[in-house]
């Protein structure tokens, strides 16, 4: 009898230690710092998770628990979104520092943490933050060829920020002098209650003439050009 009582007490004690592990999602890297050309393993666990998104992959196959190997070419923050029925989505970040990395060549907006020059706000009734994040990643990176950085400034938010990319559609052949233009986007997704996701979409357009390498921001009188580009991205995000 004493044996069963002791066994019950032990199981209660063990369960009290184990329950926070299953309630709180875990996301960790085996090596938080690697040398250039090296790799690290990212692993996560959250038993109730039924859907997940990892910034380097897109939607993940095993949201409740998995391990993936990553080989970043510069210091990278990996963002993981885990979702479970009836619970708020969890946005987790794991930073992998790369020593001796040269970094990428793209030109980035000055401050990735603030919205860019032209802003538009939308609310979308999506059932999943992960699915919407995967959609944004696919449109910006795969369809439009942008270099994308993802980070999470708040626990319910994921931000996609792109490097500037020259786009022939932004140029006007009859414009004298002929200008080159480039555009960068920033998309912030914030999970709201009752399945509503707030989307802050902002863009920055810069121009230069053929012989001068300096880039200048497109002025406010070009807001139509901004609006067209922002609306176009929003249509792509909704269409996918």
């Amino acid at each position, binding site marked *: 009898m004493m044996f069963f009582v002791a066994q019950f007490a032990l199981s209660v004690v063990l369960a009290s230690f184990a329950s926070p592990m299953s309630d709180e999602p875990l996301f960790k890297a085996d090596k938080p710092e690697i040398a250039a050309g090296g790799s690290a393993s990212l692993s996560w666990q959250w038993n109730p998770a039924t859907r997940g998104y990892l910034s380097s992959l897109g939607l993940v196959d095993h949201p409740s628990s998995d391990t993936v190997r990553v080989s970043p070419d510069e210091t990278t923050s990996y963002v993981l979104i885990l979702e479970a029925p009836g619970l708020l989505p969890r946005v987790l970040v794991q930073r992998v520092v790369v020593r001796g990395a040269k970094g990428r060549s793209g030109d980035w907006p000055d401050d990735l943490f603030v919205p860019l020059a032209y802003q538009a706000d939308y609310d979308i009734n999506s059932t999943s933050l992960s699915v919407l994040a995967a959609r944004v990643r696919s449109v910006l990176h795969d369809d439009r060829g942008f270099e994308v950085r993802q980070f999470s400034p708040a626990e319910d938010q994921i931000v996609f920020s792109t490097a500037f990319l020259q786009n022939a559609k932004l140029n006007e052949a009859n414009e004298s002098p002929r200008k080159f233009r480039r555009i960068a986007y920033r998309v912030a997704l914030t999970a709201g209650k009752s399945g509503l996701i707030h989307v802050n979409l902002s863009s920055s357009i810069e121009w230069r003439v053929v012989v001068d*390498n300096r880039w200048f921001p497109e002025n406010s009188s070009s807001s139509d050009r901004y609006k067209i580009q922002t609306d176009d991205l929003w249509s792509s995000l909704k269409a996918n």
Partner: protein
Amino acid sequence: MRFRLNLDGQRWCIISVWFVCLIANLTLVLYLDSSQYRPIDAPPETWREPINKLYLDLLAIYAPPLTTMLAIGFARKPNSSPRQRSSAPYVFAICASLLWNGIVIVQNSRLSVFHTLDIQSFAGFLPILPGGLSFLVTPFLAFYFSSEQS
């Protein structure tokens, strides 16, 4: 008929080559200015700095040789009975002048007409000329413009 110049004539011919090339270079930059920099509706601050600097840089590289040539060209008294001189140094002087100026004009054309060179690269190239290619200019400056003969 063989056309041969005396020393005064040769001096003024060399000065003419340099002067024409300076005008050609300034014309190219003026064309660049009017086609690229002037038609901007609302120019941003510091927008014209590179083109303004280019005018000054071009004048700066032409100033030392042209000043020397013009000063001595005007200072020498014309000879009433000029002797004809050997054409070899004169041909070398003309060729060296054309090479020096040709390099500037070709690079300037790449910038102003063909747009295969940006203005910052051209501005970086200009200061190299007076030092790096001075061996093309100095010998004939010394020969023609410091010679006591006339």
